[in-house]
């Protein structure tokens, strides 16, 4: 019982982050047909941008940053992330979209991903960093850990889960209820038609590229203090968000979020599951979901063939 509860809470917290990342992939894909393969690295930009302003590149203790400085740092980190997204779309992706060159934008997004990775790890030279925590979670329970029904759970996990749901709801509300959101939906349905009726397609899509990264980054920053963080952590978030989005075929933001949460739960289950006595263990946690996503894509490929044609 206690183990099960621990698995569920850990899984939900991790899955919430994957889910919001998956929303980012889905949004961009439905708007442009582009799979933004550098999304994880955009998150890295925001996280490490925030860390740079908040605490520099030296060692950090969780308590060493004041609230005002942290807010400033967060603003700077998100601004970098949004600017990178907007510029990437305008300068590097749109030219290839206009030319219909899939290979072109695929190459560009992967190139940008590796460029950001190299840049971040050049500035942040340690193998991993402790992220400053603006909220006093460590004052609750024993150093931020409470015991519920025998399970030891980080208090932050509840915060991350709540924030994830709030961000997913915010994204959905924006899409459904605001002028900008309706504009985005029009673009997703028929980009040329939207252009004709006067929707500023390029500006909205560029904005979506920026915000898709920033949305996920907010949550990644909220979750970051719970474990050591490095640039690979962000890249892997990108891969897992992609896995979630692929499994539901970039269907809709809520579907993507649900898939992300499910992925988190599956991962935490695999990590402590055993099949007929043999412990599966954490090794399989990273590997199995990707294999499943690939199988899903393969099964869907027959339908795809007719769609691609004409």
């Amino acid at each position, binding site marked *: 019982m206690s183990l099960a509860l621990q698995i569920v809470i850990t899984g939900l917290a991790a899955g919430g982050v994957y889910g919001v990342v998956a929303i980012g992939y889905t949004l961009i894909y439905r708007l442009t047909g582009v799979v933004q393969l550098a999304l994880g690295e955009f998150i890295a930009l925001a996280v490490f941008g925030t860390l740079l302003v908040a605490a520099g590149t030296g060692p950090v203790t969780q308590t060493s940053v004041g609230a005002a400085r942290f807010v400033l740092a967060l603003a700077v980190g998100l601004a970098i992330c949004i600017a990178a997204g907007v510029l990437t779309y305008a300068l590097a992706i749109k030219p290839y979209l206009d030319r219909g060159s899939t290979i072109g934008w695929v190459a560009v997004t992967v190139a940008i991903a*590796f460029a950001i990775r*190299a840049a971040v790890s050049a500035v942040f030279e340690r193998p991993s960093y402790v992220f400053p925590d603006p909220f006093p979670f460590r004052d609750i329970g024993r150093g931020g850990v409470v015991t519920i029904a025998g399970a030891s759970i980080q208090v932050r996990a509840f915060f991350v889960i709540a924030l994830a749901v709030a961000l997913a709801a915010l994204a959905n509300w924006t899409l459904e209820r605001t002028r900008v959101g309706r504009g985005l939906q029009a673009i997703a349905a028929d980009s040329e038609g939207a252009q004709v009726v006067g929707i500023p397609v390029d500006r909205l899509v560029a904005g979506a590229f920026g915000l898709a990264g920033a949305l996920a980054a907010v949550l990644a920053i909220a979750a970051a203090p719970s474990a050591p963080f490095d640039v690979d952590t962000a890249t892997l978030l990108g891969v897992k968000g992609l896995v979630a989005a692929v499994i539901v075929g970039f269907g809709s933001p809520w579907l993507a979020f649900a898939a992300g949460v499910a992925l988190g739960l599956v991962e935490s289950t695999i990590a402590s599951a055993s099949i007929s006595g043999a412990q599966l263990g954490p090794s399989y946690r990273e590997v199995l979901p990707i294999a499943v996503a690939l199988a899903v894509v393969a099964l869907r490929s027959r339908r795809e063939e007719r769609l691609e*044609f004409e």
Partner: protein
Amino acid sequence: MNAVAARTTGAFGAALTEARRAWRWPATLATAAFVVALFAPLVLSRIQTQELAAWLYLALAAIGLAFAVGLAGMPSLCEGAFMAVGAFTAAQLRSKAGADPVSATIAGAALATAAGALLGIAFVRLGRVLFAVATWLVAWLVALSLAAFPELSGGARGLPIRAGAFTETIHYELALVLVALAALVFFAIARGAPGLALAALRVRPPAARVLGVPATRLRLGAFVASAGIGGLAGALAVQLAGIADPAGYGPFLSFKLFAAVLLGGAATALGPLAGLAAISALFHIAHWIGNLENVSTTRFEPMIAAALLLFVLGIGGGGIVPWLRRFVPARTATIEASPAPPPRRFAGATFAAAGIRKSFGGLAALVDLSLTAEPGTIVALIGPNGSGKTTALRIFSGTLVSDGGRLTLDGAPLIADTTTERVRSGVARTLQRTAVFDELTALENVLVGAGLERGYGGAIRSALATPKERAETERLRGEALDILDLVGLRAAASTPAAHLSSSDQRLTMLAAALATRPRVLLLDEPAAGGSAEDVARLARLLDALRGDGLTIVLVEHNLRLVSAVAERVVVLDGGRTIADGPPAEVAREPTVRDAYLGTHRL
């Protein structure tokens, strides 16, 4: 026996003559570079030889990737994963099972080929975007598996392999020969019939498919080749290095190879070499500067590769080799005027559709369409926009499956479900919008259609340029020229299709469809956007084809053309047949006039 010998000698002589004619100074340069490179170990240290050999193995994998990216236009992001499969298979066999170098290498390449076949069957039908995503996830899957299972990969320390019988020099010479061989095979395939079909598929997949290009099979072949070559390169590279280090086989390796192929020029045999050389040269310069400043620059390598790729793509470049090629005199295509071509006979067949139904969602697009077209006649299918004409043609040509009804050709049911098989059984179709292969000449466009007929056009035969394959190429070329003659485009045979007028492009499409040797020709608005003169030319051509005995089904908005050439007209409105008969009779039907709202007159 003598006759065979004489024939062989003759074929050999012909091949030599052709090779001499095709020879250009870059070929001399490449040959000279290869010969010089063979003797390089004489002057290089062991370390240098080893480094060069390692680089050549990477180049081998890059050429392998070019089969998928350059020839088939597939954005494959998992070449590094195939190298890893080859590398760790070989390393495991060498270090744990004590296998000898040759069998370990073969096993590594074989397992990578098998992995490529499996993934290919699963993914080659995907559109380009999802194909890129799937291969990217494969790269991560392999990298994370290596990290997660140290018993497989040797963990952080890697798998050491004890020194085998192969010295650095043997590795170097082997790598050099393999690279040259892979580049030659790539070159031969790109120039031959499969290359033509792949180029068509790369530029306009739908247009290639209606000409019967077997898209899935060609893509699968290219992808499996890229996997096998990658696996071979990986298996040899770890044995040269003496250790299989999982850190070296992450997604960055896949990206680096992808970048090298695009940098050098994806569709060229030497492009991957040039691209990889550019990346490695910049790495070396960075290391040199870094050493002066006492900074380690290894971690900047991804940034260098990415920046270089962004730069080349940003300036709109097709890559290094295509850029260099502008300095090489273009091959002057000599198209010799043949004597008056024999009149071409098309054997028509009776094409019949009975009770064809199709609906999309709840919307009925076709309701009980029945139509019979006899050899030597033209049946026109007309109707307002959205009345189901193109849907009917798509069902006839096999790109769309009907909900019910029967199609027969000379009484035999047409049940073959792929477009390729439909084309092979004699039903060819042109597309509504102009869809020529821009980069190919008019003649090559037609040859794409003729490719289906080939008995000897496979990739291996193309690569070896067997005498039969060459004879067939000659014959098909002659026939393609005759077809161009028939549509009046012989003079434009060596003009790139992009430079033709739009009406000539439509005629090129039609010629390509004719090259599939159809018994039934389905034409989708061949006169759209043409001038009165173009329409008159088209009418004469259709008349001639009918005279040859071909069966023609014509979807057309230009009613002047329809009434000039068609024996019978079927009028559709909202998916229903509202009239069927000779043009003059149909024109008198009030329902037809209503459907056209009086805006057209027959």
